[in-house]
């Protein structure tokens, strides 16, 4: 369902999209539409977009068409989701050790809504790092 979400074609568009939103969190998904992991993530993003439209907006970026941020943001995974609020990157402590991004496919819509809501509440208060409501570390896996 990636074709139902807005795409950003170059770096300038990414910059302007983040600058335009002053009261909402900007969720940017870096990857490719044809990637299976991105397909699952895009399905979840499309499903939750109407529910979070009051405090979040979702954009998709193809890392092959827009290679400006690959080096700085370390976009080396097939699918990466990052959160920006008022032209500032918001970090999320998900328990994986990497607080800068979500580099897997979140298939549960409610989990993603909770994460975005937490980012919105914390960012509005001026925090640069928020704690995720769910722990995604591997201690429950094994």
């Amino acid at each position, binding site marked *: 369902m990636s074709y139902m979400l807005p795409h950003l074609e170059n*770096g*300038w568009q*990414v*910059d302007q999209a*983040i*600058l335009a939103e002053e009261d909402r969190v900007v969720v940017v998904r870096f990857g490719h539409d044809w990637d299976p992991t991105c397909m699952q993530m895009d399905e979840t993003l499309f499903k939750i977009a109407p529910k979070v439209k009051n405090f979040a907006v979702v954009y998709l970026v193809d890392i092959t068409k827009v290679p*400006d*941020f690959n*080096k*700085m*943001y*370390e976009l080396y995974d097939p699918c990466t989701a*990052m959160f*920006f609020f008022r*032209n*500032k*990157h*918001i*970090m999320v402590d998900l328990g994986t*050790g*990497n*607080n*800068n991004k979500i580099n897997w496919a979140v298939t549960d819509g409610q989990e993603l809504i909770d994460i975005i809501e937490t980012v919105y509440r914390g960012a509005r208060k001026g925090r*640069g*790092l928020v704690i995720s409501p769910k722990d995604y570390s591997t201690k429950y896996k094994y």
Partner: protein
Amino acid sequence: MPLPPALLARLQKRGIVKQEEEVIAENYEKEPEKKSFEENSAGAPGCPNKWNQYHVCLEFCYDHWGDGTPEYRLPERYVQNKNRMLAKFPLPENWVEVYDEGLAKYYFWNKTTDEVCWYSPRHPRAIISDPAPRIAREHATVLFGDSHASEEDNAARRRNFHNKKTSRGGNDDKQSRGNNAEKRKRRDPMTSQGPDSDEDELQEMTNKDRLKRAKRKGIDPMDPAAYGDAPVGKWSDGLRVDQVTGADVTAGGPLFQQRPYPAPGAILRKQKPQDEEDDQ
């Protein structure tokens, strides 16, 4: 009553006879530095190689040959032949007979022109030439690069002038005064070889020198790089600025994970100058 030449030479070498030395010193008071250049004019008294124009008497000649053969030990037949030659070809004006202890022979010396000859100058087979010790010194000057050649010429002229005053003992004075000059000249080859040895040391540094160099550079002495001549640098030395990764290098470890990424606009503005440089 003058002393025999051999005895006079021995006494002067021991320092017992000082009268003539004082006279010599008076003449050279104005320029005492040039006195040493004259002292090697005749070479070692007992050296039999003085006739060789490539031989310069060193300290070894004085120690090894000593005083040579005294005059009273000459064979009677040689003396008779010499006297017969002199009777047949008398010596011209300004020529004197001088005994050489090294070869145990007499030679004839012109006090005015400082020329020498083994026969009487009027003998048909006589060959008159410059003294061999002087020619040898000139060759040594060319070989060792003596920078005082011009001063030596002045000293030679002064010696000729000085020799006019002395009578038969002039040669003995020259012989006795050669010892000091030989000691000084003996060091010249060693000093001239100094730069060569320095160059050798520069080409191959010893381990001690390499350790000192490593200490100056701040390298640990136990690090093998302390003994190597390869240039030292970091991992990223030699990399182009464009190839350097965009990772944040201002922090490491947990602090790095706690640092947010810059905004997309900042990244674009940072990349813009690089693109312009690439275009140029």
